[in-house]
């Protein structure tokens, strides 16, 4: 199997490189297409955009976090980023991370004693198999020595250094699209290789929004009326899938349970006017059945890509049944479909 290196920069295919009535053999056009396909396939998706749970993990305790997201099948490793502070300037503190929670390799980090300059740390999680799948992405953190302030979490799929010329990576062999090379219908080669790569391309903006709190200390609500969780609604926007689209479908879910009875989680958006409810009846923590919503998508007519120049803001609310507490440890919004 051949390994096809990726380029640092993306390429931009130019339609002028292919002329009506002329042979499609110009080196610039086909090479750009192959390089572009390889670049787009090899870029990793951001699964969890950076966010701050702003919690303190007590010394001697372990906290577990959950995220719902759909992975892409080219990734072979994930990069977790964390931002730690000591709760005390003087007390030496260690943070030990495992991803996935419980089963991942434990890596201990010494938390710096400066409280002025925050320096993120990186944890690398190997991926067991290349798969496009909706997963419960998890990690846990144990604090030792002193209390640990967790101020940042993020996770992205690491870019591939290159692609294999197989039917999973669909790497296009660059030397088969050079000027003078014949146009061939061979897997991973020539024009056919480019077409096959495009036909199987998954360039999703995977993770759109996550809020995650430790499953050991979730947020709760018993009152039988909705209360908004976020002080400020977070901007949310997905990809544009066809010329006339102004919205596109994404999924959301909550990692939740109730003590008994039922509770509800509601997700709302501003510009796209979403109001979607999930009813929770299970008494053990679980990801609830994902709901489909349509939120604003990219607008290529706008300089900054916002649909009609407007922020689409997301907020979510909790409601118990008046008697029993609803507990929520995470809410996730992700892109499920590539086309």
């Amino acid at each position, binding site marked *: 199997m051949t390994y096809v290196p990726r380029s640092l920069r993306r390429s931009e295919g130019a339609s002028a490189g292919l002329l009506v009535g002329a042979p499609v053999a110009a080196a610039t056009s086909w090479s750009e297409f192959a390089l572009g396909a390889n670049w787009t396939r090899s870029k990793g998706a951001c699964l969890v955009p950076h966010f701050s749970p702003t919690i303190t993990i007590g010394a001697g305790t372990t906290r577990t976090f959950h995220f719902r997201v759909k992975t892409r099948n080219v990734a072979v490793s994930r990069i977790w980023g964390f931002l730690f502070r000591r709760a005390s300037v003087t007390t030496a503190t260690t943070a030990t991370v495992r991803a996935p929670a419980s089963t991942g390799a434990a890596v201990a980090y010494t938390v710096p004693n400066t409280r002025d300059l925050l320096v993120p740390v990186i944890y690398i999680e190997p991926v067991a198999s290349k798969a496009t799948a909706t997963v419960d992405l998890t990690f846990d953190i144990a604090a030792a020595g002193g209390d640990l302030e967790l101020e940042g979490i993020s996770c992205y799929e690491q870019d591939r250094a290159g692609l294999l010329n197989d039917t999973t990576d669909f790497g296009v062999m660059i030397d088969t699209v050079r000027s003078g090379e014949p146009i061939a219908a061979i897997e991973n080669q020539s024009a056919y290789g480019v077409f096959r790569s495009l036909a199987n391309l998954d360039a999703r903006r995977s993770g759109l929004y996550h809020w995650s709190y430790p499953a050991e200390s979730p947020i709760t609500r018993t009152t039988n009326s909705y209360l908004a969780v976020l002080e400020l609604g977070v901007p949310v926007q997905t990809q544009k899938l066809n010329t006339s689209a102004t919205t596109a479908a994404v999924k959301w879910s909550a990692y939740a349970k109730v003590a008994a009875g039922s509770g509800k989680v509601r997700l709302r958006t501003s510009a796209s006017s979403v109001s979607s409810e999930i009813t929770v009846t299970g008494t053990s923590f679980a990801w609830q059945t994902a709901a489909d919503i349509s939120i604003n998508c990219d607008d290529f007519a706008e300089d900054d890509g916002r649909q009609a120049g407007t*922020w689409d803001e997301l907020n979510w609310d909790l409601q118990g049944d008046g008697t029993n507490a609803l507990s929520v440890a995470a809410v996730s919004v992700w892109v499920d479909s590539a086309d």
Partner: protein
Amino acid sequence: MATAAYAAATCPVDPDITRDVICNNLDHYADSFGQVRWAFSPGVSTFVTKSYLTPRTADVVVNTWYQITASAPFPLPLRADGSGYKLRVRLGGASSGGHAVKFALVIAPVAVAPAVLAASNTDASFETATTTSASAAWLTGASQGIGAYTTMVALDAATAAGYVRNVDTPVDLSGAASAVSQCLVSVVVYGSTANTGSVPRLYGGFAAEWVG
């Protein structure tokens, strides 16, 4: 995306269809690839212990930038001309004591960010208007370079090239390590106050890649 334009080895390739299918689809995939890198709003005090972040410096000096938070480094996609995909950004904040505070966002490696902020003449740096309100709100602002973008920051090709690093990663699931070149940057956020009686409180933030 259809493969019908190249249905079989013996079928002729129509250059017009080829142009449309390949150029439009491939460029669109790459154009819309941009990922969300930062989406932050902790929650109201009913549910969470801290609804905002602040600088942690004990002795705040007025009109001086202090780091509030920073994202982990992420690989910013580079366009064909070497410039980075822009980041569509937004900052939300408030003042703790009614005095004027403001916020800034820089796209750079964490160690380089203070110098970028100090330069104050680049579109890699975004500064909000001041606020005296104690209520959390999204703030207006603009990048500090010639672009003066009101919702974006941008990294030019020369600067982006300086942030490119080689990072070891497995070539495949069980492969040996190989170097992948990436433009690694973080979103770094600062706050400043005009009076020591107030500190800037960061209630929300957002940064998403956009091809621009």
